[in-house]
Structures are given as C-alpha cells and as structure tokens.
C-alpha cells in the first residue's frame, strides 16, 4: 500500500517527456521499427558508396539472373544488379516521404493554427478548401496534380504534400480549438502575450504530440502513394532506381522471373511497415487514456 503511494507520487513528478520515454520504451515493436528506420536512413546516406555494382551499368551477359551469391537479389532485364538498385532506392523513397510530409505538415499546421485560433471567415474558408480537397478520393488528387505539373519525382513530392496538408490542418485546428480556452492560454493572453507568441509558444507545443504521430503515420502512406505514382508512370522516370518504378518495369518479366518485382516490393513493404509500427507505438505512448 505504502509502496504504491510512493510510486504514484513518483509518477506525478515525472515530466511529460520522461513519462513518454518510459511508455515508449515498453513498445518493443515500435523500438525495432525505429531501429530499422535508422538503418534505412544510414543506408540512404551510404548506399551509393557500398552498392556492389554500378546501378546503371547494363550487363547483357547477365540478364534476368536469379538471386545468387554474385547477385544477392538477381539481375533485371538489362543485367543490372537488383540488390544495388534496391539499396540505392532507399534514398529516393525516404527523401520523397520526408519532404512531402514535412511540407504538408508545415502548411497544414499553420492553416490549422490560424483556422482554430481566429475562427470566423478565415476558419470557414480554410475548412471549406480542406473539405474540397478531401472530396477527391485517395490517390486521385495526386494523379490530377501530376497530370497538371507533368510526371517527375519532384512533382510527386508536391502532389503528396497537397494531399497530406488538409489532414494536418484538421488535426491541428481541432487541437487549437480545445487549447484556445484552456487556462494557461488565457493566462498568457492576460499578461499580454501576442497572438503569434501564444500560437507558437503555447498552443503549438501542446498540439505537437498529435502532429508527430500523424507525421510518422503519413510518411508511411506517402511513401506508398509516391511509389504507386511511380508505378503508374507518373513519378520517377527510368533509369532512376525507384522501387515502384522497378516493379513497373519488371511487370513484363513477372511471369518467368519472380525476383525482379519481388525485392523492390519487399523494400516498400518493410519501409512503410516500420513507419506505421513506429506511428502506432508513438500514439500508444502519447495516449493518456492508455495506462500500462
């Protein structure tokens, strides 16, 4: 009984961050996922240096070879080493995911803060635009944007950023609405803190946990969307070692050579999976309703 009380007091004294670290460290899957993401990030940096073969070198003496000790993942229809191409593709997918979601999160957060804090016409205008963007189902909006801008990986980044902005805007708006009336924001206002100061120093930090969870989850989705667009011929163009594009190029050989499409697919799957698992873990660790 006494022990329990001491423990409770200790719990109360923990900072929110320490509490988060304690809860997160219990999420074993999420930690493994985080480790794998670190591994991918390092791979993205060093891939071009450690790749055993030149990713663009055609080798007509070794086309469509099955995996072997010489070519771990086999070779494609031009005799290029699939292992080298897959590890070099890490950089593209991570960068596309990171860039597009960061832009989307940045714009969405600003829109959400303004919308929730000021309300009125500004709020209804921003929310109407978000509703409209939400009315385009799934990947269709991204396809439409690429159709306007033309194919290419940088246009995919823009398309995915536009696609993820309204989600962040809604999320941040609803957090802002709740926080606007809270005591500490009222107090900040009473001592004369400017609106920007309140938004940046008081409301944003409190909304941050939700933004981080959403950010992690959206990276997974946007890597998937970007590789789908490349698969459809709207994203990265040959000979970029983009995973979706590699799958698309390998489709003609799929009947006889499974390995050409198999390994890039595994790469997409594991990358997206690790971001989703990390997102799940963060959400559970930040959710105050979930106690051990």
């Amino acid at each position: 009984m006494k022990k329990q009380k001491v423990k409770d007091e200790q719990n109360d004294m923990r900072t929110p961050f320490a509490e988060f670290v304690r809860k997160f460290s219990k999420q074993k899957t999420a930690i493994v996922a985080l480790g794998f993401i670190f591994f991918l990030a390092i791979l993205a940096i060093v891939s071009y240096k450690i790749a055993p073969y030149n990713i663009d070198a055609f080798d007509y003496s070794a086309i469509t070879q099955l995996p072997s000790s010489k070519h771990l993942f086999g070779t494609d229809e031009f005799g290029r080493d699939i292992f080298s191409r897959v590890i070099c593709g890490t950089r593209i997918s991570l960068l596309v995911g990171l860039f597009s979601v960061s832009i989307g999160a940045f714009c969405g957060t600003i829109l959400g803060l303004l919308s929730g804090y000021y309300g009125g016409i500004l709020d209804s205008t921003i929310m109407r635009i978000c509703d409209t963007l939400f009315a385009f189902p799934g990947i269709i909006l991204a396809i439409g944007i690429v159709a306007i801008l033309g194919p290419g990986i940088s246009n995919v980044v823009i398309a995915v950023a536009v696609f993820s902005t309204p989600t962040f805007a809604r999320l941040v708006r609803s957090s802002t609405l709740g926080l606007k009336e809270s005591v500490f924001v009222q107090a900040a206002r009473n001592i004369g803190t400017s609106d920007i100061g309140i938004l940046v120093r008081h409301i944003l930090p409190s909304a941050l946990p939700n933004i981080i969870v959403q950010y992690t989850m959206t990276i997974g989705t946007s890597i998937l969307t970007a590789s789908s667009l490349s698969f459809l011929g709207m994203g990265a163009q040959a000979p970029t070692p983009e995973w979706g594009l590699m799958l698309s190029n390998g489709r003609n050989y799929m009947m006889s050579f499974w390995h050409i499409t198999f390994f890039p697919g595994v790469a997409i799957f594991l990358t997206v999976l690790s971001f989703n698992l990390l997102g799940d873990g963060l959400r559970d660790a930040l959710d105050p309703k979930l106690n051990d």
Partner: protein
Amino acid sequence: MLRYIIKRVLAIIPTIILVSIFVFMFVRMIPGDPVALVAGPDATIEDKVIIREELGLNKPVLQQYANYIKGVAQGNLGTSLKTKRPVNYEVGLRYMNTVKLTLASLTWSVIAGVLIGVFSGRYRSKWQDYLGMTGAVSGISIPSFWIGFILISIFSVKLKMFPTVGAGTWKHLVLPAFTLGTSIAAIIARFTRSSIIEVLKEDYIRTARAKGLKENLVIWKHVFRNSMISVITVVGLQFGFLLGGSVVVESVFAYPGLGSLLIDSVNYRDYPTIQSLILIFSLHFIVINLIVDLIYATLNPEIQLN
C-alpha cells in the same frame, strides 16, 4: 430526422460547387495552350481559331464555367481527345466494371475486417489479437500493385485458377477485388478492434455479463451491434481509398474500368477525359459519404435528437 436529412443534403452543395470549380480550373492550370494540345503540331492558325471557338475558350471564364456546368448537368462531358468519341461513351463502356470491382472489394473487406477486428478486440492481448493486428498493420503497409503481382504469379501463372488480365466473368474479378480490398480490410479491422474495446468498457456490458449472459452473446448482441455504429463511418471514408486504389489495381490487372481509363488519359494528355473522370470519382465519393452519414444518423439516435 427529415430536418437532419435536408440539412445534410444541402451541406454538400457548396462542396460540389467547389469541386466543380477545382475540376474546371484544372484544364486551365495546365502549362501551355490547350488549343495547341488539341490541334496537334501541324495545325494552322485558322485551325486553332476554329478549335478555340469549339472549346469555347474565346469566351469569358465565368461564361465558360457556366457552359461547362450546363454541359455536365445535361450529361455532356465533352469529347475525348484520344478516341474523338464522347467522354460519356468512354465512361459508359467501363463504368459498370469499376462498380463491380469496388463493390466486390468492399463486400469482402468489410466482412473480413469486421471479423478480424471483433476477434482481436474480444481476445485482446491474446494470440488471436496479435495475429489479427500483425496482419492488419501488414495490410496497410503492402503496396497493392505488389500483392497483385504476387497473386498473379501464384494463382494465374502457377495454378492457372484465374485469368491474368481483363474483365467479363466473375473469375476476372476475384484477384483484383482481393488486391483492392486488402488495405481497406486492414483499416476496418484496426478500427473495429478499438471500437470493440471501447464498447467493452461500457456499463451496459457489465450489466449484460452480470445477468449471466454467455460471453458470445454479450459480444455479438451487445458489443458488436454498438461498435458497428462507428465502424460504418470508417467504411464510408474508406470508399475514397477504394475509388483511388482502383486506379492502381485496374492498371495491374489491365482491368477495363474507369481507373485504367484515367491512367490512359493522363498518359495521352486527354484532358477532357481526365477532367470528367476526376469529377465522376469525386461526386461518387461525396454522395457515398452522404449516404453513409444518413445511415449513421438513422442508427445513432443521439444525432437525431440534436
């Protein structure tokens, strides 16, 4: 209830207008002159003037928009640049294929997703839960085109059970529908599980157990029915992913639906068709969400009271 329905139906009108403006602006945002695109590289200046008039591009923008809306309202979506046939005709050829594909995918994914979710929620933190949720998080992480390829190489190439590409018989539908439904099944499973866990905390569940009901009866009669109310809204939202995902899946299976038509049109820069398809996809999504909201309202008395 009637007032709620009217309010909800009226609320989608501004969204539809905004969507139509977006789609209308769409063609005008394309870099370069649409007339040059339509006319082709060999066209003379006279040709271009005629085409400009045909497309109505010499009129003020507002009037162009009015004409466009009038055309759409009369069911006239313009002419395809690729086939020179009316877009309506091209859409009509493929419309039912996409409807069949999305409905088949939705049916299996709702059944599978709800079942997995209920079992995971009921046996929370047991092996059933871990198995179900591992499957579900994998399902949302797998690229659909990759599943499609794997299914084709196993069931079409090796086992020769289903055709690789095309449409027509139910056999053509099995692999694409399975592929398209996977991620939605996974999302529904995850949502159903958390909804079940929420409902299990309710007082009336304790009452049901206290009066000696068997656990199966508690789950299916009380927990299941109450958690389904919120699952329905998720199904509506997932319909968007279904429509969007159909583009990728139809491309994998060379399935002649609206999605593969969209890809063809983008590759051919067939703007009237792209514009019409994006409008069609969005309108369907808006209307489906309206229907889902109304179903939700009929099932959830709290909404009717407000």
